[in-house]
């Protein structure tokens, strides 16, 4: 297995495949502009991610692709965590593409949806390759803003969810552009390469501000605690396929951002601890609120918040100790989470269309996928938990990590019960075109992390080791026990509003409206001629008067 991957990676045309991976969805998106080509839209969804899949295998850590005909040179390079996340994400996009293509055949107005889908795909692929700040910001914007088109595609009342999503995404963009400006300004020759920026970061005069802004900017993407308000409403409003790619793929853009932009060789204890605290609290907060929800998609959203909290905690721990291993571990964990979460969203799509008979046959597989999030042995989950065990260490963080496994099991079982409740006797069951992507995801979530963990990390085949087996099994059993015992108590939990804290975020808008009204009154006063002419004279006097201040 090793030498095959090695042979492939010295493939001569590595950089060109990177360009192909980006170019394919871009060309297909532009093709949507003409009405004639738009009819093949659904087919594009399937074809586009294939190139990226090939690229992640062929081009991993081969020479960078440099396009320097612009004002700023665009540099694309694929390093190991980037290749892993790219492979996993494009796999998810492929499966979701098949799911979306088949479920969309009947809709006529699919042109815009396909265009937004491909735009988000371009962003999602590019964000893993970008090695310079300008193109990273471009792909990051591409992965977050066109997604708005996916969210509001079907649901009538999706506007408020879309609005919240866009405003938080734009807030993230604002944080990031400030952070990148600080990063680039700290480098001696204002170079835009991320590597130079990160090397100069520890010594930069604005180090804390930069790291803080980076955490805030990428935090909006991975749903770090105060900035998670958009996730529940967005994933519930978006169509299933879109929710799958957003929760599984787009979130990884935040993870790769943190992985790329943190100065791993240099310990930054202050921000590290903050990240750990935020991460861990998100891990448990997500599950706590998730249990009170009714809609399965919202529960999955809260599970994402919780899992991403764990990833953030791993990265935080890595930042405190300054060890690079945390980045690789977090990337692997996020990769597995992407596959599992995407699969679960597809499962929700499939199961909500199933009859009771078909439901009973599919539920065990979905259960397997759900519990893999909690680290079920023989699944990808155990590998993911193993990857983050070393950075978290065995102390408090290790215990919290196993506790979160129990909590996740609790949430997943509650989710399975909710999904099962969806089924009603129905004559038509979803066709194979919908079910195969789900099964592909289940298979991938098992095989891919294992293959990666052993092929690249070249550890010995240990999954059959008894201690590890037991170590990952008991949290799930305990979780199952609690779920069974507290079943009735869980049912009666009050249903919190969807965005929990988000619902109260609407209050400042009132303030904003009042500010707007005041601006209106000010404008009416300013519009009167004497006031405007007076303002003109005041400006003239102010500027000429400046001479008096310093002769």
């Amino acid at each position, binding site marked *: 297995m090793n030498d095959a991957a090695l042979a492939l990676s010295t493939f001569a045309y590595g950089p060109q495949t990177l360009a192909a991976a980006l170019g394919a969805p871009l060309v297909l998106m532009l093709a949507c502009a003409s009405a004639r080509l738009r009819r093949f839209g659904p087919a594009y969804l399937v074809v586009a991610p294939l190139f990226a899949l090939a690229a992640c295998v062929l081009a991993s850590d081969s020479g960078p692709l440099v396009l320097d005909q612009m004002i700023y040179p665009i540099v694309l390079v694929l390093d190991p965590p980037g290749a892993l996340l790219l492979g996993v994400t494009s796999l998810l996009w492929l499966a979701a593409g098949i799911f979306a293509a088949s479920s969309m055949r009947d809709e006529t107005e699919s042109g815009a949806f396909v265009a937004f889908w491909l735009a988000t795909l371009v962003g999602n692929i590019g964000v893993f390759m970008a090695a310079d700040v300008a193109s990273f910001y471009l792909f990051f914007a591409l992965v977050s803003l066109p997604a708005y088109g996916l969210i509001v595609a079907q649901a009538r009342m999706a506007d408020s969810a879309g609005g919240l999503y866009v405003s938080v995404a734009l807030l993230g963009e604002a944080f990031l552009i400030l952070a990148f400006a600080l990063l680039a300004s700290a480098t001696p020759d204002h170079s835009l390469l991320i590597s130079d920026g990160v090397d100069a970061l520890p010594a930069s005069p604005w180090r804390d501000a930069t790291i803080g802004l980076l955490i805030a900017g990428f935090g909006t993407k991975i749903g770090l605690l105060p900035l998670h308000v958009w996730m529940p409403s967005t994933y519930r409003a978006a169509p299933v396929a879109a929710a799958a790619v957003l929760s599984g793929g787009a979130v990884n853009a935040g993870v790769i951002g943190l992985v790329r932009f943190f100065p791993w060789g240099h310990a930054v204890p202050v921000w590290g601890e903050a990240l750990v605290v935020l991460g861990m609290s998100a891990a448990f907060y997500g599950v706590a609120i998730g249990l009170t929800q009714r809609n399965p998609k919202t529960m999955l959203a809260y599970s994402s918040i919780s899992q991403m909290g764990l990833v953030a905690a791993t990265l935080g721990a890595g930042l405190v100790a300054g060890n690079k291993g945390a980045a690789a571990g977090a990337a692997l964990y996020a990769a597995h989470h992407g596959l599992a979460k995407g699969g679960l969203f597809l499962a929700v799509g499939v199961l909500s269309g199933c009859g009771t008979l078909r439901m009973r046959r599919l539920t065990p597989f979905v259960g397997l996928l759900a519990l893999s999030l909690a680290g079920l042995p023989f699944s990808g989950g155990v590998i993911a938990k193993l990857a983050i065990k070393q950075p978290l260490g065995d102390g408090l963080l290790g215990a919290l990590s196993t506790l979160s496994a129990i909590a996740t099991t609790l949430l997943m079982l509650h989710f399975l019960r909710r999904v099962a409740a969806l089924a009603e006797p129905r004559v038509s069951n979803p066709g194979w075109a919908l079910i195969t992507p789900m099964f592909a995801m289940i298979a991938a979530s098992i095989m891919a992390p294992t293959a990666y963990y052993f092929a690249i990390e070249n550890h010995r085949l240990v999954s059959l080791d008894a201690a590890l087996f037991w170590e990952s099994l008991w949290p799930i059993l305990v979780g199952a026990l609690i779920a069974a015992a507290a079943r009735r108590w869980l049912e009666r939990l009050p249903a919190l509003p969807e965005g929990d804290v988000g619902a109260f975020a609407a209050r400042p808008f009132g303030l904003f409206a009042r500010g707007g009204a005041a601006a209106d009154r000010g404008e009416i006063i300013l519009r009167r001629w*004497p006031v405007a002419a007076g303002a003109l004279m005041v400006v003239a*006097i102010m500027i*000429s008067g400046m001479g008096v201040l310093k002769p």
Partner: protein
Amino acid sequence: MTLSFGFDLSLAVLTLAVAGYAIGARESFASVVAFISYGVLLALVWVRLSAVDVALTEAAIGSGVTGALLIGAAAKVGEGAVDAPRSVRGAGRLLTALFCIATTLGIATAFLSLPEKAPTLAPLAAEHLPSTGLGNPVTAVLLSYRAIDTLLESVVLVFAVVGVWTFASDRDWGGRPESPGKDRPEQPLTFLGQILPPLGILVGVHLVWTGATEPGGAFQGGTVLAAAWILVMAAGLRKPPSIEGAWLRFALIGGPALFLGVGVAGFALAKAFLAYPEGHSKAFILVIEAALTFSIAIALGLLALGAPGRKGHP
């Protein structure tokens, strides 16, 4: 010395008083009339500042044609509704007064703080005067040293005419501007309309011709010709021209177009845009001034007449 300063002081005080009345008068018609007399007084002040060219321009354009325009507007627009807010009252007025006084004091201090030995371009202008072949330095500056400003200024007049015409309503397009006079002008007006214009044309041409050596020039001459033309139309002897007339359009742009043509020819003839060939500059300048005068007269006349009125005005 004190006598001439005394005259200047009284002239200045009188001018400021009339200007104050023009600003502060109750009715707008009185304000316009005061403005016209202010313009004439200002022409006197310009003569005292030994700027006769400017005095001519101020009297002709500043108070003459502008005055005619404003009186026509004041007659048509009137005072407006009695109860309407005439001007800012109370605190606003006081505050504005304060700002204006501050502005005046600022400008006065700036003026008084100017260097004793005033920096001037007069020696340079005088030194190059012979090469332009002109006697009057102001005309030399207008048509040779800073020829681009004069060219653009005559083009600005054409812009203004186009702008005024676009304010007409669509159905009036192609018609004639309203005649400044009444339909059946009184007998003495027609008498004046027959006597004065020939004299006006004579004076106008003379002004342009002497402009090369004595104070005068295209703009002043053009204004006198325009005044003569307006008087003829007011006296009902001629109808205002239809704005679609090809001749009118050609006359309007003739002056600036010729000026531009000579300027571009300057590339070949005199190695620079708007330069005149050695030795012939006076001839070229006079040709340009003649064409400019005619176009300026047409332009000022059209601006005084305003936007075209009803189509097929009898």
